[in-house]
């Protein structure tokens, strides 16, 4: 196995289970079996190479020195003070329906607004929910959305996950404010594997904001996340991922959303920090009238490497999906967008769009865009577009003629370019945070 993570030096999955279940007295049998199976798949799956289409532009072996990582995930729970930066973020986030803090792959606190809890909403540590064999978790965890058969990293995550978040919204319950997950990764060359499972029952409503932070590292560290979202008939789910890790942080995310009849699942992926960020997002529209808005925003500098691999699977007819990913790339940053709209046989009256726009701010930045369509139905409206360009010189000239310095004018144009994505989100804490981070990057 080249460059892979040899857990326990190949001692096997028994140890995996032990590591993951430290402090809980072990996994229930069904979970242990599920991990075993995932581990077998992990071992049977070849390491992703740039010879495969999906990993063509991201050389994991080179970018992620997995061989250098500690041979086991962190077992022990965080103790002591929260880091200063995290505390500042928590303080400024403001009102929400719930809040989960995850430290090095372990949930240290999960608090839900009492009113929301009374309505029957469940917010808990995923490990706790699994250990108490919650029937929903048992049914859906790594079985339908992000499964071990999805690839090398999903398999690894399914075998080794230590904790995460479980959200269950009962029928008809509308949670107005977002639930926030704040993750902190503290240790260099140490992998963490976590999962989020969100199940929104019929006609319910939920918004979930998932932020990952870390300090700068001297050597690479890996945060692997698996996000599974189920929207039952008529439910509405919004999921936002905000990655603001420090230097040498690597984020590998596998996300799948499953939208049933007349439901909507909207996602926003924001990549600002870290050295490598790879997001695999699959939106499945399995019920008539389902819809997905898929937004993405990235700002890369130095040698940052962002790779978004999205797919829109139109399985049912009369469904709608609309994707917009926009990114600005400075320094030696590299941005890759690979997206595909698949209209399956029989998915008539599909409405699907896909747009990727890139702004190159330096001579050494590189943008790669692969917007794909695969269409097996005839009565559809599909389009895609991709652009790569530099700052609009006329806009710059206009602003400078109004007395702005070049730097100011450039910042304004970049803000306007990326602001299009945020404006779709409406007023939110996330938008403010993103704008502040981008502003800081631009001034540098």
């Amino acid at each position, binding site marked *: 196995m080249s460059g892979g993570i040899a857990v326990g030096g190949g001692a096997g999955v028994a140890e995996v289970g032990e590591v993951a279940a430290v402090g809980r007295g072990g996994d229930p049998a069904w979970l242990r079996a599920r991990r075993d199976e995932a581990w077998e798949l992990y071992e049977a799956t070849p390491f992703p190479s740039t010879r495969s*289409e999906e990993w063509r532009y991201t050389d994991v072996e080179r970018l992620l020195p997995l061989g250098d990582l500690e041979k086991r995930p962190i077992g022990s729970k965080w103790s002591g003070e929260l880091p200063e930066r995290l505390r500042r973020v928590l303080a400024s986030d403001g009102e929400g329906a719930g809040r989960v803090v995850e430290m090095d792959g372990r949930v240290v606190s999960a608090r839900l607004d009492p009113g929301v809890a009374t309505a029957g909403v469940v917010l808990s540590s995923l490990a706790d929910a699994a250990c108490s064999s919650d029937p929903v978790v048992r049914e859906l965890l790594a079985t339908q959305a992000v499964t071990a058969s999805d690839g090398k990293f999903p398999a690894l995550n399914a075998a080794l996950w230590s904790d995460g978040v479980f959200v269950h919204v009962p029928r008809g319950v509308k949670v107005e404010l977002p639930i926030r997950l704040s993750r902190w990764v503290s240790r260099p060359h140490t992998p963490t594997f976590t999962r989020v499972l969100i199940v929104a029952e019929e006609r319910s409503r939920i918004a979930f904001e998932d932020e990952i932070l870390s300090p700068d590292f001297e050597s690479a560290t890996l945060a692997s996340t698996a996000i599974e979202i189920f929207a039952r008939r008529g439910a509405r789910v919004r999921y936002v991922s905000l990655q603001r890790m420090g230097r040498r942080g690597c984020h590998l995310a596998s996300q799948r959303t499953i939208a049933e009849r007349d439901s909507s699942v909207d996602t926003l992926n924001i990549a600002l920090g870290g050295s490598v960020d790879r997001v695999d997002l699959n939106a499945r529209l399995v019920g008539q009238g389902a819809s997905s808005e898929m937004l993405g925003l990235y700002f890369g500098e130095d040698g940052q490497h962002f790779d978004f691999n999205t797919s829109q699977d139109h399985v049912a007819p009369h469904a709608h999906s609309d994707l917009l990913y926009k990114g600005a790339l400075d320094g030696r940053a590299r941005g890759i967008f690979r997206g595909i709209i698949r209209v399956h046989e029989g998915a*008539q009256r599909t409405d699907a769009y896909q747009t990727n726009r*890139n702004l*190159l*701010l*330096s*001579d*050494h*930045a*590189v*943008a*790669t*865009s*692969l*917007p*794909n*369509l*695969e*269409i*097996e*139905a*005839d*009565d*559809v*409206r*599909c*389009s*895609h*577009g*991709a*652009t*790569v*360009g*530099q700052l609009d010189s006329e806009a710059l000239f206009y602003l400078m003629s109004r007395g702005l310095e070049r730097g100011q004018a450039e910042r304004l144009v970049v803000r306007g370019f990326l602001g299009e994505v945020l404006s779709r989100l409406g007023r939110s804490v996330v938008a403010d945070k993103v704008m502040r981070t981008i502003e800081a990057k631009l001034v540098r």
Partner: protein
Amino acid sequence: MPTNEVIHGLGLDDYKFGFVTDSEPVFRARPGLDADIVRQIAARKDEPEWMLKRRLRALAIYESKPMPKWGGDLSELEETLAQTYFYSKPHEQMERSWEDVPENIKLTFERLGIPEAERKILAGVGAQYDSEMVYHSLKEEWEAKGVIFDSIEDGLRNHPELFRRHFGTVIPAADNKFAALNSAVWSGGSFVYIPPGVHLETPLQAYFRVNQERLGQFERTLIIADEGSRAHYIEGCTAPVYSTDSFHSGVIEIVVNPRAYFRYTTIQNWSNNMYNLVTQRALVHEGAHMEWLDGNLGSKLTMKYPSCYLMGEGAHGEILSIAYAGDGQHQDTGGKVIHVAPRTTSSIVSKSISKGTGRASYRGLCKVYDGAERARSNVECDALLINETSRTDTFPYIEIDERSATVGHEATVSKVGDEQLFYLMSRGLDEAEAMALIVRGFIEPIAKELPLEYAVELNRLIELEMEGSVG
């Protein structure tokens, strides 16, 4: 939604030239491929030693490269290749004037629907019958201008230095598996040289036919458009229908020297059992202009992506691509533009129609290297779907390493709308006419680029495919 009868009435699927003329090849190698076959081909052609060495090296490359896993379904191709005759030489010797052309070949042209009068106008026709040029005449005025328009074999024989300097430089044998195969067994094709500053008003034309069952055709064309020259080359293919799979794998190399203009037009209408895997590439130098006009109507599977390597400052590349995929057909086509030098510009316009169980895939690459300052490229793909079972894909690759580059890609997919049909029918057209009009309107931006006055039969092909007015 139009009824199936109406769609059938359009005759889009009927292969118009499904006739067979008897011809007896003088020499025909056994089916399959090995070094002996390659040596036989070279010996028959009386080629210099260096070419034989190249062929053998290419064969080794071909054998070492795996079958491509992307694009169309090539799973049955190995079997087809084992049955393929890699070389045959027809009865006839090279002909200079129309009167000397054998009757059965004249008949073939007759069946293609080119009237006698127009044949005379069609200046400098090089017709490829089976694997070699058998009819080849060149207008006197062109000869006076120093233009060379020969069979590829004559090019090698009569212009060895020019030939050797350019052959295999645009598409080396190692480029891909099928380029390697072609480099090993090539036979037939054209050699064209346009001297500096020469402008050709009438297009150079070659008709290609594959006429022998299981006969592979490995046409090889090398074109050099020297500085400031201007020319247009037209290649049209029709092939009789046969029962077993057939295979065609051409290599077209074009060098467009500084400030030259060159256009290469292909209308491909192979019968529906043909594998058509072609490599076409142009090196476009400073201030030069290259256009590929690529029409793919026939074949079982076509994989063809004409490309422009924009090597010199201000070079321009254009690819206009049209694909029609009927029942059982897969057209995997598109184009590639590679920007190497500053201020290079390019555009790709692709239109495809999928009907019945047909599948049209656009596959393209736009690459801008670091240092290709202010390069600009635009790609537009439109796909039209006729039936529920029709399929279309778009696979563009956009790789940009240069900040000052401006690159755009857009694609849309649509079906023939009921409203459009209803509108036209309310104006008195019947359903078939309305359908044909919509399809014609869809491809018009590319169809209008065809040189109507010189390529009567090429346009007829398109019209027949689209309108089905003749069964």
